[in-house]
């Protein structure tokens, strides 16, 4: 049931993305952006209902799996954009973020939903919930920063290369994109720091060691150091193209640690599965 709802939400996300993209292609039609924003809000609301229902169906343990993590993250990216929208009037950002949301959500629509078996008693720990929530939120914010940084790089190429074409006129000013990237990186870094600390606490209780050179721990630390350095560098006036490039690199690293490492069995303890998943009925 929650999966069906999620699929409906995905369709609305797609319609919302279409609205934002239509606005991007024809900036005259501001109504398209407005419709896109409304649809995004609707999809977001449906998405959270679906998450709630999944919690009821599978006891909330779904978020321990990779699939559940993606469902949660897609929702958080949408949330982050809706929040950003309140403070920055940049509807063209929607054209980059809504497809990204859909992209994150896409693999989860065809997967087998459900609980990843029963977690060991040692994992039933409120700190672990906090760890997963903050990690997902942090990554969602980095995802948004990735989209905005991409826009910055595209616009920078236009402005610097003197191509004053369609992209030039549609993309927001460099300064706005740069400022937004910086803010997102800073907020994401703070949230991610909490995720790392809680992760260490959980690791200490479960693995009996806060640090065990688990590959995901290592990549996460690298990401944390990278973003931390960027937050620091900002104070010394560092900005622009390289800042945007590093923002994108950071997110790529996050993706590697989240997806690639888990795809290889046994390489990391962050497998997200503790037992074979309980099969639930799958829509044809």
């Amino acid at each position, binding site marked *: 049931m929650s999966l069906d709802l999620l699929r409906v939400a995905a369709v609305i996300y797609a319609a919302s993305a279409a609205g934002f993209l239509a606005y991007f292609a024809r900036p005259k039609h501001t109504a398209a952006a407005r419709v896109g924003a409304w649809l995004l809000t609707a999809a977001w609301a449906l998405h959270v209902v679906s998450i709630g229902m999944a919690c009821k169906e599978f006891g909330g343990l779904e978020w321990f799996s990779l699939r559940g993590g993606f469902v949660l993250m897609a929702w958080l990216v949408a949330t982050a954009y809706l929040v950003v929208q309140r403070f920055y009037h940049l509807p063209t950002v929607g054209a980059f973020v809504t497809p990204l949301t859909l992209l994150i959500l896409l693999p989860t629509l065809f997967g087998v939903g459900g609980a990843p078996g029963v977690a060991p008693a040692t994992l039933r720990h409120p700190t672990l919930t906090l760890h997963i929530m903050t990690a997902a939120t942090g990554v969602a914010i980095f995802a948004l920063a990735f989209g905005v940084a991409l826009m910055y790089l595209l616009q920078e190429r236009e402005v610097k290369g003197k191509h004053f074409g369609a992209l030039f006129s549609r993309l927001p000013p460099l300064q706005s994109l740069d400022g937004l990237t910086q803010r997102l990186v800073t907020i994401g870094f703070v949230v991610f720091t909490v995720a790392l600390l809680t992760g260490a606490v959980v690791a200490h209780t479960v693995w009996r060691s806060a640090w065990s050179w688990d590959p995901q721990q290592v990549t996460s630390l690298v990401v944390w150091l990278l973003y931390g350095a960027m937050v620091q560098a900002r104070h010394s*006036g560092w900005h622009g193209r390289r800042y945007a490039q590093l923002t994108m690199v950071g997110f790529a690293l996050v993706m590697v640690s989240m997806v690639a490492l888990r795809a290889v069995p046994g390489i990391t303890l962050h497998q997200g599965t503790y037992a074979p998943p309980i099969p639930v009925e799958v829509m044809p």
Partner: protein
Amino acid sequence: MSRRSLYLVGLSHKSAPIDVRERVALSAEALKSALVDLKRMEGVEEALVVSTCNRVEVFVQAEADQPARLFFTSRAQQAAEHLYVKAGEEAVRHLFRVASSLDSMVVGEQQILGQVKEAYGLASAVDAAGGYMSRLCNRAFVTAKRVRTETEIGRGATSMSQVAVDLVAKIFGDLSDRTVLLVGAGKMGALSAKALRVLGNVSVVVTNRSPERGQALAAQVEGTFQPWAELEALLAKADVVIVSTGAPTFVVTAEMMKRVMKARRHRSICLIDLAVPRNVDPACADLGDVYAYDVDDMQKVVSANHEARRSEAVRAEAIIEAEIMAFVQERETREALPVLAELRQRASAIARAEAARTLQRAGAGLDERGRKSVEAMAQAIVNKLLHGPTMRLKDAAASGDSSLPGAAAALFGLEEKDPSPPSHDQ
């Protein structure tokens, strides 16, 4: 009805030099009395005068163009040789093209529609414009709006200073609390600095080799003057730099910019070089966070936008042609209406008369309902009979065929003002 038509007599930036144009241009007050005078002239039904700094055009709904010509020749004798005269559909087309900004010096500029609206408002305020001008002008406004929304004729900057504004807007967003530095006292630089004020509350700093001219320019652009020796320090503080000196060499060199960027901790800077020969070393553009543009870059944008507007103008002309057709059709339909109205009026008179006669003879045995149905029957027969001719007359009028209304008038005997019913009623 006498044959009145729309005449246009005018002169514009295309036909007359400025000294002639300014001689016939009028203030709003003078325009009002001129409109009243025009309206009073023999054979003039309605009048409209569009007077801007680029054109003075007199539209009259009249029997001849003479009154409109007189408007010009009485004001300036030499205007006669610069006048263009258009009549009928040509005059309609001209008004539509003017309102849609196809005839403007900068094709697609926004102001002209407002000026035409103002001209119409003035003409109708003094009763010089009546029903015809109202329909004509409204159609012109609709056309202009369609051209603006359906084509991209108004898109893109068409002057250097506008290009500069667009560029700076894409780098900095708004310019509040930022500094614009004017290097050199060139006229284009001052224009651009003024234009940049639309982007927010900027502070303008001027520097120039000769302090006198620099100070004068600073006063003109409401900025502050700083001595030339400070140039490098000023560059380190400014966000947008507009360079237009008469110097034959680079005033801002790449070496200097390297030091400046270090001093300003690589905050973004936009260098706009309006000087020919160039005053900013093109190598500056290769430095990070430096956005440098020269006259050629800006001119390329201006020409590309002019080119784009010209190609959009072709689409605009198609819209205008469609609207002219619609306007002419609407008018012809309106002209066919008197025949229709007359025909219907006569027919219902006959129906009423016949019903009355029948009721007089045989209506004694009928109650009120019976009488009503006899009257209704007579009316229904007339309506049924006239339905086909009515539709065909309307179609003919709409397709511009004026022969059918005339034939109908002749066939039904509507021309003679004889009120007696047609012959079948003996």
